[in-house]
């Protein structure tokens, strides 16, 4: 099926691994990503905060182009920030005619126009989880990622509360968990999976950013993760590139590989590894990937009995 | 005006197909008795009578007039008034006169649409100038006139008072004979006539009474058009999903159609005490549609049921095939409607 594709600034630069792996896994799933011609920056997280109208106009231009080109009403953005901006602006234009008027002037200057709601903005995760579905993904799995303990990390933009018709629970998202499960990986459930990675705090107040990053890494590690899977170039960059800084700053010894969930999908689909952009990450994923076994690990007992004199844990819903 | 003292019989054919006359002749050798008993004074279908003959009769001259056909145009109405004036007993004979019948189905559309169909859109018509019949056409010899084609088809009792109704499309010969006997009895031996306004030559309850098919509890999942299904010879047709109006139709015909695997069309009209045969039929049929239950989500439920009722093509035409003129609403709302 045909989808408009909005790579945004990072996909072909620092997030090349995300870009290539995305293309590598979407093709076999029958997703035909058609890049929007002449797209521009989404304004990232800052611009909207600084200068609304131009920021909205900037984003609207991409929507207008998407609506204008390649016939698909679906627009996929793999970058969380791009996704949220596109979706948000489409929503605001719809809600606020006054705003639309102003934006229309800008678009009109460029000979463009956009009818709010005519483009359905999706995050890549949404496309895979909702449109394609777990079954279809499962069918493509050739080399299950048995025994690999992966902590899915959603960041704060995709599951943001109040995000109009969000495709997942903002407080406790599980869509990536389920995808990783069908890939055969052991999914780590940890409380911070939807918390902030620091975003551009690394530039503004490094102290703050490092603490946020540390908490994430530690929480994932404490819960036994071999690696963290992300769906956002910003998150990947922060957790990966700043790990060193965190270690020196806090005297910790994190060696937590941060990969894109699409890379793991590629592995499981048995896509040639060189097409998946492994090796581009700073903390190498290789050692972790070695842990993958051919046999599925023994399922842990459905119900953890307390030690001697201990009290039984409650049965978990899906088990009990 | 023969003075032979025989009761005088008239039969007139307004907007109808003529099946009623044939049905009268279908009483076989009894027709001779009719001729014996009655003095036929107006019966354009079988003998040459002119309106002026009729006009020349004194009022109430005719003892019994069998009027068949609906009131489609001004001529039909004029004749109705004239015959009413000349007849002691005026009988709405057959479904058209009684409740509109097939002609009244055109009440489901408009006069305009009907004309376009007949004089323009009809494939067998070549009428490039799009000429419609004219009320008055002037030629050298003078003015030619045509009757006014009404917007709404009416039953006989909607233009004149009617003494009796004989339902059926056409009425069954044995019923006709029964009716005539009653009249003869009344006229010759002074036997009592049925109360005015009575429906004669038919039963009082619904057709199922006469239908020999086996009836069970009705749980119908969908409906079939006759060509879609081979009905079981013994089971109730309705239960098999064939629309059969027998449940809301007066008995008296002997359940002819169901007996040969065709759902009752409803030509004998509703049994006693029913205002609107179509609505009643609709209600009953929808009631026994066994789709959807209270456990379902509201949308799902509505969808399922809509699907099921959609298996009945042209409900209005089906349920009101004969009773349109007597239905509660009588005709389609102006302009809109099935066309």
């Amino acid at each position: 099926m045909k989808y408009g594709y909005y790579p945004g600034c990072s996909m072909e630069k620092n997030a090349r691994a995300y870009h290539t792996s995305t293309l590598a896994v979407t093709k076999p799933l029958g997703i035909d990503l058609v890049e929007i011609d002449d797209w521009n920056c989404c304004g990232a997280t800052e611009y909207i905060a600084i200068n609304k109208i131009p920021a909205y106009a900037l984003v609207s231009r991409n929507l207008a182009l998407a609506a204008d080109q390649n016939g698909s009403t679906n627009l996929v953005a793999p970058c969380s920030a791009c996704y949220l901006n596109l979706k948000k602006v489409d929503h605001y234009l719809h809600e606020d005619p006054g705003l639309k008027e102003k934006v229309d002037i800008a678009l009109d200057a460029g000979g463009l126009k956009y009818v709010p709601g005519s483009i359905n903005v999706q995050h890549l995760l949404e496309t895979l989880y909702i449109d394609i579905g777990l079954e279809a993904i499962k069918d493509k799995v050739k080399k299950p990622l048995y025994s690999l303990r992966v902590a899915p990390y959603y960041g704060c933009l995709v599951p943001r509360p109040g995000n109009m018709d969000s495709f997942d629970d903002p407080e406790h998202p599980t869509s990536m968990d389920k995808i990783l499960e069908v890939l055969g990986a052991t999914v780590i459930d940890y409380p911070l999976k939807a918390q902030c990675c620091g975003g551009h705090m690394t530039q503004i107040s490094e102290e703050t950013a490092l603490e946020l990053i540390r908490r994430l890494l530690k929480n994932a590690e404490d819960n036994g993760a071999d690696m963290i899977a992300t769906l956002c170039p910003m998150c990947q960059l922060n957790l990966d590139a700043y790990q060193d800084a965190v270690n020196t700053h806090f005297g910790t010894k994190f060696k937590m590989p941060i990969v894109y969930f699409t890379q793991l999908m590629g592995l499981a689909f048995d896509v040639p590894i060189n097409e998946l952009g492994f090796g581009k990450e700073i903390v190498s994923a290789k050692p972790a990937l070695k842990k993958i076994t051919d046999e599925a690990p023994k399922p842990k007992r459905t119900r953890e009995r307390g030690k001697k004199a201990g009290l039984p844990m409650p049965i978990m819903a899906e088990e009990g | 005006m023969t003075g032979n003292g025989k009761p005088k019989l008239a039969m007139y054919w307004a907007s109808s197909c003529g099946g009623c006359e044939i049905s009268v002749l279908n009483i076989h050798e009894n027709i001779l008795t009719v001729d014996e008993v009655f003095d036929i004074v107006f019966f354009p279908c079988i003998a040459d009578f002119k309106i002026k003959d009729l006009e020349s009769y004194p009022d109430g001259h005719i003892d019994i007039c069998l009027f068949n056909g609906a009131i489609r145009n001004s001529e039909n109405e004029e004749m109705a008034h004239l015959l009413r004036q000349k007849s002691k007993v005026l009988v709405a004979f057959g479904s058209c006169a009684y409740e509109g019948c097939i002609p009244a189905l055109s009440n489901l559309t408009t006069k305009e649409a009907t004309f376009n169909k007949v004089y323009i859109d009809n494939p067998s018509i070549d009428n490039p100038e799009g000429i419609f019949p004219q009320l008055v056409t002037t030629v050298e010899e003078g003015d030619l006139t045509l009757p006014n084609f009404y917007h709404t088809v009416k039953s006989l009792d909607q233009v004149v008072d009617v003494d009796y109704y004989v339902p059926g499309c056409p009425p069954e010969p044995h019923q006709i004979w029964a009716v005539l006997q009653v009249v003869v009895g009344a006229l010759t031996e002074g036997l009592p006539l049925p109360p005015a306004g009575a429906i004669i030559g038919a039963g009082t309850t619904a057709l199922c009474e006469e239908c020999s098919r086996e009836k069970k509890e009705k749980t119908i999942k969908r409906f079939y058009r006759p060509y879609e299904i081979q009905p079981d010879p013994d089971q109730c047709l309705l239960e098999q999903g064939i629309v059969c109006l027998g449940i809301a139709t007066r008995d008296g015909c002997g359940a002819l159609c169901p007996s040969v695997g065709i759902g009752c069309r409803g030509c004998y009209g509703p049994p006693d005490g029913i205002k609107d045969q179509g609505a009643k039929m609709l209600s009953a049929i929808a009631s026994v549609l066994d789709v959807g239950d209270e456990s379902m989500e509201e949308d799902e439920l509505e969808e399922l049921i809509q699907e099921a009722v959609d298996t009945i093509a042209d409900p209005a035409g089906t349920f009101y095939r004969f009773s349109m003129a007597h239905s509660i609403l009588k005709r389609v709302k102006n302009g809109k409607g099935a066309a």
Partner: protein
Amino acid sequence: MTDMKKSPENQEKVGVYVCHCGTNIAGTIDVEDVAKWAENNPNVEVSRTYEFMCSSTGQELIENDIKEKGLTRIVVASCSPHMHEKTFREATERAGLNPFFFEMANIREHGSWATNDKNAATIKAKALVNGAVERVVHHTPLEKIPVSINPNTLIVGGGIAGITAALELAEAGHHVYLVEREGTIGGHMAQIDKTFPTLDCSACILTPKMVDVGQNDNISLLTYSEVESVEGYIGNFNITVKKKARCVIEELCTSCGICEEKCPQKVIDEDYGAGLGYRKTIYRAFPQAVPGYPVLDKENCTYFQTGKCKICEKECPTNAIDYEQQDEMINFNVGNIILATGYDLFDAREIPQYGYGKLSNVFSSLEFERMVNASGPTEGHIVLRDGVTHPESVAIVHCVGSRDQNHNEYCSKVCCMYSLKFAHLVHEHMPGAEVYNFYIDMRTPGKGYEEFYNRLLKEGTHFIRGRVAEISNAASHPGEEGKIIVQAENTLLGLQQRTPVDMVILSSGIQARHDAEDVSKLFKMGCDYDGFFNERHPKLAPVSTMTDGIFIAGACQGPKDIPDTVAQGGAAASQVAKLISQGTVMMEPVRASVREDECSGCRVCNTMCPYNAIEFDEEKEVSRVITALCQGCGTCVAACPSSVIDGAHFTNTQIYAELNGILWDVQGEVSAKQEVI
């Protein structure tokens, strides 16, 4: 309609009475105008207005007119028939007319209260009055149908509500069938340690009542049983109960408990023990269980799983064990039914970010109840999941699953109070331990409740006003290491607050039983949006339902604490007792009947009746309505294609008459002959 004006009923003498209802009606509707206008109707003999028609003088007005003016039909235009139809029917009857010669026009609820537009309200009132007048002339005399009440009663649910109701009735000398799904009666109350606010021991006040139930000859106790089918109607329900096989012959069992003692197989006790403790596979939920017979749990029993063991059979001194025992169907008749099926606790797993089932030291409220209970798995010691360590700090989270758009929007009423109780118990068991109660609003309505709250304030509980966002083990600084961190916005300080504790208790709210909807269908009565059973009237008939002869008590109607539940149990019992002492009830004669001589036997109506009140006479080939079963909905009347089913008091003639009456101003009636073609 013209044809109706011809009808002889036209000679009826109707009295019309338009009520002012103080200003409730007269304030919006020109009642004088309505009354005057009504006189124009040929059927109307007198037309008056009066301040309060429902007052005794108002009623006398009607009675006198009937006597003096020889009225034959009465129309009162006032409030909803659900309010005063009964009142005016009685007045009509007192004056010697058939009570069903009365009709009501609802010009208050549907009229004056529903609009401010005086003109429109008056027009509407005229329409409604006219409709009632046209209708009432076609009314036929009806007699209420007497139904004799079977003095036996079915009570479903052996919790405190059911127990109370059962004892009330039994002690009044009436026989009761008490059906309980579990192996013992007692319900949730038996799981609880102490009761707020008085803190008396739940078991101490409950078990004596349970024993009374067990010993009362008027109570047939059917535990480990479920109602399979319910047929019939008030006064005479036919009930079938499935008595599940407990593999113990009750006649032989002496409840000595040896089988339980010797049984080698131990499993986690999910029901009574809230999953915190263990039980044998042949067991009594708790020592004071009533009845005392154990239940054998086939799913986990070694013998049933492997075919070996049979130890209980060997050990039983009275050979009461019977592995072959089959489920048994019991059938009996009752006159009334009380549903006291109780509630389910909200399952905290539905809020994953609260960590229940993931973080070992997050406990459900029921788990904690069992824990602090002296007879529970820890003999009343408050310990962490490891079974030994005492927590130094405990967080108690209110409103789990309640007042929450994602789950239950309503307030569960009891959580605040039992959370306070928990706080108190922690203080009591472990002086020095810190207790944090996270609440949205503190709701303590009830005798001694607010005082209890004040007491807790003095005991040093930390009260934090804020809904908890998440509960995790993700420490953000060394001080949080190894702790459970409860994150919430303290709305009084306007601060995000992270509170590290050793133990968290989730105070789950009350939910309708998971199968409440099936039950309501089984008993042919309504459930509300949340699944709680619908009462007949929220204020004036809280334990009655829309179905005559079926009553509800306790939390199956909505969240309730023990005092309210007991009160409702008593109330339901007295409702039933009233009916039993009346002996018979008079039922609305709104019933369908088939004019058999005109029925063609098409059988369309046969599948219409939800109560199977329509039978087909194969002999005569006609359908027939069994009056006793008919509830008068009229669905068959609407379905009958030849209109030979009459729906008493809602006949076609009456409805057509009312219809044409209320459309008095828009008829534009033209006889067929005038209609231009």
